[in-house]
């Protein structure tokens, strides 16, 4: 009896001690000033390969520093963003972190979490190496806070050449009305769902491409900075065009990811798919050679871009090391090492196209001559909250096709998030 009581007390004591030590043991650990911790969500696939390429360049250019991989995998970056948010809140930032260039950075900038890099842009000659439209998009109240590592294009229409040839379509349409005619032709020839579409964000991309066609590049960009109204008749027109486009698409789109839609294209069940240019690398990997690509009908030379970029957080332990990382990232050699592996193109206009695969060569040429426009689902046009609101509204539209409700929701989202 006595013994068991004492044992009970001892057990409880040990439990409390364990609890206390568990609480106390977090934190600590030394930090050598030579380490540069690079925080990304590039943990596997082409992204990891790109990062590795960049790291080997960093080791040559900045041999005095150690690269420390701070990658957090999973959830297409959503896990990493959660970890990052808590680290920033505790004022324990990594030496540099990945973020979509453009509006997605706004939160960090407003909170004073990242340093102004305008001086470095001049010093490294980046202000003349990147196209002016991109520099404008990166600039917030006269200052630039991030260095883009790559450029992807969102408004690309992918085609199945055989399906088009069988239907007697020899040319990819150049305007929206032509596009509708071609879609009708395909339908008449027995292609039930000529346009392959996936769920929410892929619908968002399609809708934005239609918006660019109906509004033009400049007014489209204005939608995201408050210069263009969401309630205008031209937006209504775009919404109706988009609704009409959806009628040519697969009805089970809400159950499809972009790769499922891609499969419809590969199987010849669809002739077209709008998707970002990571599709080229994916189709190549899957061994499908019969694909063609063109800018979305009516988009002209609008180059809807999205970019991964890196920043210098305020309070970074090794700011000089971070600057060396950013310098490597922005340099011609760094951009080449990264992008040939990742399947994107360099943001710099002085890249040697011959170093890249076929699709990227045309993209590099288009990037030089095109008008850059941002993208909301990929973070260059709007903040994360705005993205969420638009995705939800788009999902609703996919099921109920209510044009007026979608326009109202988009307007409400714009009002809610532009003021923040």
């Amino acid at each position, binding site marked *: 009896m006595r013994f068991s009581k004492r044992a009970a007390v001892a057990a409880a004591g040990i*439990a409390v001690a364990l609890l206390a030590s568990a609480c106390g043991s977090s934190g600590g650990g030394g930090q050598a000033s030579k380490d540069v911790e690079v925080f990304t969500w590039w943990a596997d696939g082409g992204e990891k390969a790109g990062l590795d390429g960049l790291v080997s360049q960093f080791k040559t250019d900045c041999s005095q520093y150690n690269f420390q991989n701070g990658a957090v995998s999973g959830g297409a970056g959503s896990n990493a963003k959660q970890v990052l948010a808590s680290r920033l809140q505790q004022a324990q930032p990594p030496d540099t972190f990945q973020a979509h260039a453009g509006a997605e950075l706004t939160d960090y900038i407003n909170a004073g979490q990242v340093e102004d890099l305008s001086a470095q842009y001049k010093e490294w000659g980046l202000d003349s190496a990147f196209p002016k439209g991109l520099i404008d998009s990166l600039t917030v109240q006269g200052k630039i806070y991030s260095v883009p590592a790559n450029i992807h294009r969102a408004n690309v229409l992918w085609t199945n050449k055989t399906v088009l040839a069988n239907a007697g379509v020899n040319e990819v349409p150049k305007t929206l009305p032509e596009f509708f005619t071609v879609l009708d032709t395909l339908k008449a020839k027995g292609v039930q769902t000529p346009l392959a579409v996936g769920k929410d964000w892929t619908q968002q991309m399609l809708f934005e491409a239609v918006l660019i066609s109906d509004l033009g590049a400049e007014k489209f960009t204005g939608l995201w900075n408050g210069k263009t109204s969401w309630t205008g008749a031209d937006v209504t027109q775009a919404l109706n065009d988009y609704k009409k486009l959806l009628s040519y698409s697969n009805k089970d789109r809400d159950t499809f990811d972009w790769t499922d839609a891609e499969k419809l294209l590969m199987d010849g069940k669809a002739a077209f798919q709008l998707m970002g240019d990571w599709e080229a690398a994916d189709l190549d990997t899957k061994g499908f050679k019969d694909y063609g690509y063109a800018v979305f009908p009516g988009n002209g030379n609008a180059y809807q871009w999205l970019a991964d970029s890196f920043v210098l957080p305020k309070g970074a332990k090794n700011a000089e090391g971070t600057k060396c990382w950013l310098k490597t990232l922005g340099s011609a050699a760094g951009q080449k090492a990264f992008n040939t592996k990742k399947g994107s193109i360099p943001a710099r206009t002085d890249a040697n196209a011959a170093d890249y695969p076929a699709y990227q060569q045309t993209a590099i040429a288009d990037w030089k001559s095109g008008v850059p426009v941002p993208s909301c689902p990929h973070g260059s046009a709007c903040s994360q909250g705005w993205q969420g609101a638009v995705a939800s509204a788009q999902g609703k539209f996919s099921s109920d096709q209510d044009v007026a409700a979608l326009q109202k929701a988009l307007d409400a989202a714009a009002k809610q998030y532009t003021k923040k």
Partner: protein
Amino acid sequence: MTTSSATLPPAPGSRRRRRRSAPGGVRRWGPGLLLLSPSLILLAVFVYGLIAWTARLSLTDQHTAIRSGSVVGLKNYVDLFVNDINGRFTHSLKNLLIFTVVFMVGALVMGLIWALILERGLPGEGVFRAVYLFPMAVSFVASGVVWRWLMNSGTGEQAGGLNRIFHDLHLGFLENPWWTDPQWGMAAMAVPAIWQLAGYVMALFLAGFRGIPPELREAAQVDGATTYQMYRHVLFPQLTPTALSVLIILGHMSMKMFDLIMSVSGAQWITEVPAVYVWQTLLTSDYAKAAAISVVLLLLVAVVIVPYLVYNNRVERRS
């Protein structure tokens, strides 16, 4: 001193007993409390402490990851019900309602029917019991992925899963869009949940039936009750506590449903319920709004659970 000693009841024997009884009390409940204290502390900090923290957060305007918010009262709650774009929150509540009703009624009816059949003493009862109970061992994520294939919404030549079976059996009229139906999609979403938990409901009811003393049945038979009358007036009334537990268990599972929906449809408008909405909101770092939805969800679950706890306590005290 003198006054105090004067007021004290004088008997020395009783005083000694009292002095002994006080530390004796500590000795009686002290070790027990000490043993419980780690879990009590953990619960206090990580459950109730964080609930309080969430509730406080829901009253602030911390809509980004970084800014720490100032208190804005109930604004977030009002916004959820009144100003949410497209009425997104009320839509998610409506989805949850449809899901909950179909899921609870479905699982209850299926479970009860199976329990009734097995209770009659079917040969191979053990096998059937295992067969029906087994789906519960599968995680919602695993079954969700399979049901995602089964409930493929393509029809005609594009059909897959169940629609394909209907198509091949020339039962085309049975092909349907499943969870992609804007109005009643959530009813289809409840099908996998019913499939998983009906067996569990059956097991609970079976245990309930077995708990009824056989004398009651015999007495009913002696009194000349028909089978229907025996179930209606003798057996079912005895099952009320079981039915109540079943409702509570299914109810709170349904309110918090997340994993099944995420693996069948992913996060999207048609099938959005509050738990998924919280997650979506957190991904955009809108902490205050996510906290407000969480609190509403907690209250919803509390509405189900608290009356049950109160009822249970009362029953226990009575017995």
